[in-house]
């Protein structure tokens, strides 16, 4: 064993952090996001426990968690459908071949949307089946409300995917971790596993500005036996239109910037 060699290798891996802001951020990012999500879940469960009149209240919360987990996956897969499709071509050094082909950038985006739908379809079938088999949780019992709720998550996932891909296109593989990081940055704010009112008051307006928040609130409303979540769906849909327009503008801008700076070619041959 040579301490010199061990320290040389340790130095090599430490230097990576010194020169890369995204890597430094990553050190704090995941633990912080985990802490926020599980912290608010804990607060929510404590509140339920304190106010519970019967054991069935606890069961209700568990149902919410299972539903939220499946719903979250739709958002996540839709975002990944866009971002990972792009990254796949970066990783296999195929990006140049794709972008010198006679394709319009809109066609590229639509293709990644389709991939997202396929990914979601496969995941959903598996998750709904497993949840029913293992926990007797039948998500389909939510009925017709499932469809607009799913569609809204899909739309938000696509918007997030375009924003993330735009960032990767502009700043390259150094920010590749954002492909997985961006959804989890949104997760604590989107009130996925707990209602919005668990969040601090000053965070709630930010949370309400996210389409996903309205979807998850709507989901809890339906799972609790409430009425069809029309208001939440309208909010989610309106916000999604705005986010999609913004994301499309951002993506095109980043694409043009990448072409101006020669980054597509660089990214394609890295």
């Amino acid at each position, binding site marked *: 064993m040579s301490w010199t060699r061990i320290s040389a290798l340790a130095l090599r891996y430490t230097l990576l952090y010194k020169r890369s802001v995204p890597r430094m951020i990553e050190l704090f990012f995941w633990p912080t996001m985990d802490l926020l999500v599980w912290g608010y879940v804990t607060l929510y469960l404590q509140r339920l426990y304190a106010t519970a009149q019967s054991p069935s209240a606890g069961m209700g919360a568990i149902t919410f968690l299972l539903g939220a987990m499946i719903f979250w996956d739709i958002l996540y897969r839709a975002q990944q459908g866009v971002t990972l499709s792009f990254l*796949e*071509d970066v990783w*296999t*050094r*195929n*990006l*140049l*071949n*794709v*972008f*010198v*082909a*006679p*394709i*319009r950038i809109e066609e590229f985006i639509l293709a990644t949307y389709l991939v997202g739908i396929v990914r979601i379809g496969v995941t959903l079938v598996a998750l709904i089946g497993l949840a029913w088999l293992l926990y007797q949780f039948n998500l389909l019992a939510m009925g017709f409300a499932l469809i607009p709720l799913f569609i809204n998550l899909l739309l938000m996932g696509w918007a997030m995917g375009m924003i993330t891909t735009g960032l990767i296109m502009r700043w390259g593989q150094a920010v590749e971790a954002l492909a997985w990081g961006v959804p989890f940055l949104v997760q604590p704010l989107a009130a996925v596993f707990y209602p919005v009112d668990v969040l601090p008051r000053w965070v709630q307006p930010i949370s309400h500005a996210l389409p996903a928040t309205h979807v998850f609130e709507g989901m809890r409303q339906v799972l609790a036996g409430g009425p069809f979540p029309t208001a939440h769906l309208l909010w989610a849909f309106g916000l999604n239109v705005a986010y999609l327009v913004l994301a499309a503008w951002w993506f095109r801008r980043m694409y*043009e910037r990448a*072409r*101006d*700076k*020669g980054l*597509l*070619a660089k990214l*394609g*041959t890295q």
Partner: protein
Amino acid sequence: MSEPVVEVKHLRKEFDGTVAVADVSFCVGRGEIVGLLGPNGAGKTTTLQVLLGLTTHTSGTVRMFGKELRSHRVEILQRCNFSSAYAALPTNLRVWENLRLFARLYGVRDSAAKLGFLLELFEIKHLKDKVTGHLSAGESTRVNLCKALCNDPELLLLDEPTASLDPDIADKVRRILRQIQREKGISMIYTSHNMREVEAVCDRVVFLHKGMVIAEGKPQQIIDRFQRSSLEEVFITVARSGDVLDGSGTNTG
């Protein structure tokens, strides 16, 4: 020369104030193979990227097939194709899947017959069902060339297409490219650091240095102008000349 397939006039490209291409003008005629040469940093890769629509130019005009590249990018790319030693096809797909996919991207009709012919031409039909990532460098290059020819391009942009090939395969590839160019009248822009290859393949050479065209003509004309015995010697002279090379190709230092 009939109407040029490529017409580049006073092309300039700056990256955040750094000049990659200062002032480049050249034409490529129908059925002509033009070598884009120059030492590292001369601007040939940037020029190629501009022609492929991967990078936008700062000023100047780029017309291909008589159309302005900026406003007709997709239309122009439909008539071109590209192969590079530095770009790979998806390694996790089979050769046939990859080729079918690109044929689809280029809207090739009867792609099965077309691709079958190309695989045979490059003597790699037996690789059809192999996973692309498992191919040798030489095999990958030939599959890339099949992709590059799948849409019967009128203009083929080749970035060091034989860089990773052994001399035997490299020679085969050169002969096939020459044959296709003769039979189909394809125009080609060719970059390579192998000067003997450039002499053998290219009809004309555009020599770039520090983002400018310093010499243009048939390979032998360039050799004569620089009073050297081969393009390789010309290349070395240019690369080592620093700032003392004038536009006529004579060293003034």
